[in-house]
């Protein structure tokens, strides 16, 4: 079967310069092999610096792999970059490409011309996309007068302009408010559902986004794909594990819990103002639970609540990597 997006043992290293204080190389990707079928919405989930953007840039022909090969639509991204570019587009979250002096309509028209779109076709497409991203009434507004959220939605519209066969979404909802993010996710899902031959590779560090949208998820950490399956199968990996979620007051560092036998991994977030921490502990064995509880009961800290939530993709990540996404 020919896959829509495929990488075969792709590695990518970057040289560190002398003026960065460290000489040598940084391995951003290490022997990554993934295969994405046509019509699939594939998620790549991992923390910042895991290699997600590096992999997307290789697929989008912005970066050459140091080793291995990559293909999009059956075309080699190194040897046949032009053929790849005809069928792809990319949306990077947090980016707002365009020209401030031009209106929303003019900006989208500009980007449509990079794909050779006729004026009448572009006009119809622009109208459709602006409605989809909630900017229908901003067509004649100059881009430099839009809010940052509106600019990001414009960026999303730009990415769909050429109706690509393969769409790369690099954290597309980064920085968007909850409602806008939900709207964008809804449009992405609808686009894939109504066009079964379209393929999407989405990178994110929001587990809920990956869980909600993706047919399959690859978990990436330190340049390596550590797991790749459907969200439900990945969560099934946790069926022999137990996840405890504590709310703890008066403590902000729980690293010492890693030394307890049976603790597979843990992750926490600390809220400075309230001095409350939300701690997740993944245990290989429930028998370790009392020891964890006992370790948390120390002078100055107090367990406020304890839950055993249903496993999430974050728990899968903690189990595989030993620590959380944050």
């Amino acid at each position, binding site marked *: 079967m020919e896959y829509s997006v495929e990488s075969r043992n792709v590695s990518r290293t970057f040289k560190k310069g002398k003026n960065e204080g460290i000489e040598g190389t940084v391995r951003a990707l290490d022997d990554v092999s993934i295969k994405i079928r046509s019509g699939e919405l594939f998620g790549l989930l991992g923390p910042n610096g895991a290699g997600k953007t590096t992999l997307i840039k290789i697929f989008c022909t912005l970066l050459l792999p140091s080793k291995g090969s990559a293909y999009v639509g059956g075309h080699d991204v190194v040897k046949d970059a032009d053929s790849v570019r005809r069928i792809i587009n990319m949306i990077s979250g947090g980016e*707002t*490409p365009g020209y401030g002096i031009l209106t929303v309509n003019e900006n989208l028209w500009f980007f449509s011309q990079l794909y050779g779109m006729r004026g009448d076709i572009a006009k119809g497409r622009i109208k459709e996309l602006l409605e989809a991203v909630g900017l229908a009434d901003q067509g004649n507004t100059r881009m430099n007068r839009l809010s940052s959220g509106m600019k990001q939605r414009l960026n999303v519209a730009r990415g769909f302009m050429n109706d690509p066969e393969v769409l790369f979404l690099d954290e597309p909802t980064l920085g968007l408010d909850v409602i806008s993010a939900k709207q964008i996710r809804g449009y992405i899902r609808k686009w894939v559902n109504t066009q079964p031959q379209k393929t999407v590779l989405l990178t994110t560090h929001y587990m809920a986004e990956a869980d909600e949208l993706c047919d399959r998820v690859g978990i990436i950490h330190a340049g390596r794909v550590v797991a790749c399956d459907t969200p439900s199968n990945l969560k099934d990996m946790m069926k022999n594990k137990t996840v405890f979620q504590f709310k703890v007051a008066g403590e902000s560092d729980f690293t010492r819990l890693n030394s307890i036998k049976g603790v597979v991994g843990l992750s926490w977030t600390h809220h400075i103002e309230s001095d409350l921490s939300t701690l997740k502990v993944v245990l290989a064995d429930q028998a370790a639970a009392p020891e964890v509880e006992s370790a948390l009961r120390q002078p100055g800290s107090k367990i406020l609540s304890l839950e055993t939530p249903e496993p999430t993709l974050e728990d899968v990540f903690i189990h595989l990597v030993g620590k959380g996404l944050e």
Partner: protein
Amino acid sequence: MERNIRTIVARTYVRVVGGFREPSWLIWDTILPMLSLSAYIYVYKVMNAPREFTGFVILGGAMIAFWLNVLWSMAAQLYWEKETGNLEPFLIAPISRMAMLMGMAIGGIFNTTIRALGIVAAGILVFQVEFLVGDPFAALIIFALTMIALYSLGMVFASLFLMYGREAWHTSHLLQEPIYFLSGFYFPVKFLPFWLQVAASAIPVTFGMDAIRRILILGEGFQDVSIHVIVLAAFSVILFLMARWALRYMEQMGRREGRLTLRWQ
């Protein structure tokens, strides 16, 4: 081909429309250059230089507008596109990089021609410069070839800015004043020592400047500037091909080293 033509038109549109939506530049970019041009003109008047030197300076001032547009606007364009997040969408689109830069060049030539005509008009009004147009057709050919050569040079610089970013600013700074001097923007190059004239002949705008002056101020014809036409045509071809090669080479190097879309470098 159609895609590249549409790209050229679209990028030209951005430049031209951008220029007209903030038109205050037309006033400042005409009045301020006239101050330094006036200084040269008054020095020549004090020295009792031939009358045509006033016209030489005005035409030099008009040509400086193009040189500065090439050096700072054209050359740095890909760098600014990178900083504003436009470069990635350009590079992943199935278009020729030259098409993108040609759109920028045509838009730049259009806007700068308006600026240059403003300087010439100011020169005529304030200093009563007289033009003896020997051969308008020759003037157009010389102008067109000079622009092709100059903006092809700008595309070569654009490839440097693409890779080296802010470091390339220093190259532009380095080139600005020496080119003012060697190209004869303020005085004819024939007054320079021979070895400097030889150095100046490596710059396309030197030939364009000299030919334009001969045609528009001294009333000479196509026959008198035929060598200039040949040299400028050769410069145009060589620099265009160099720009094409440099862009491909720099882009490939950027993809290999991971610096293509790296910011603040």
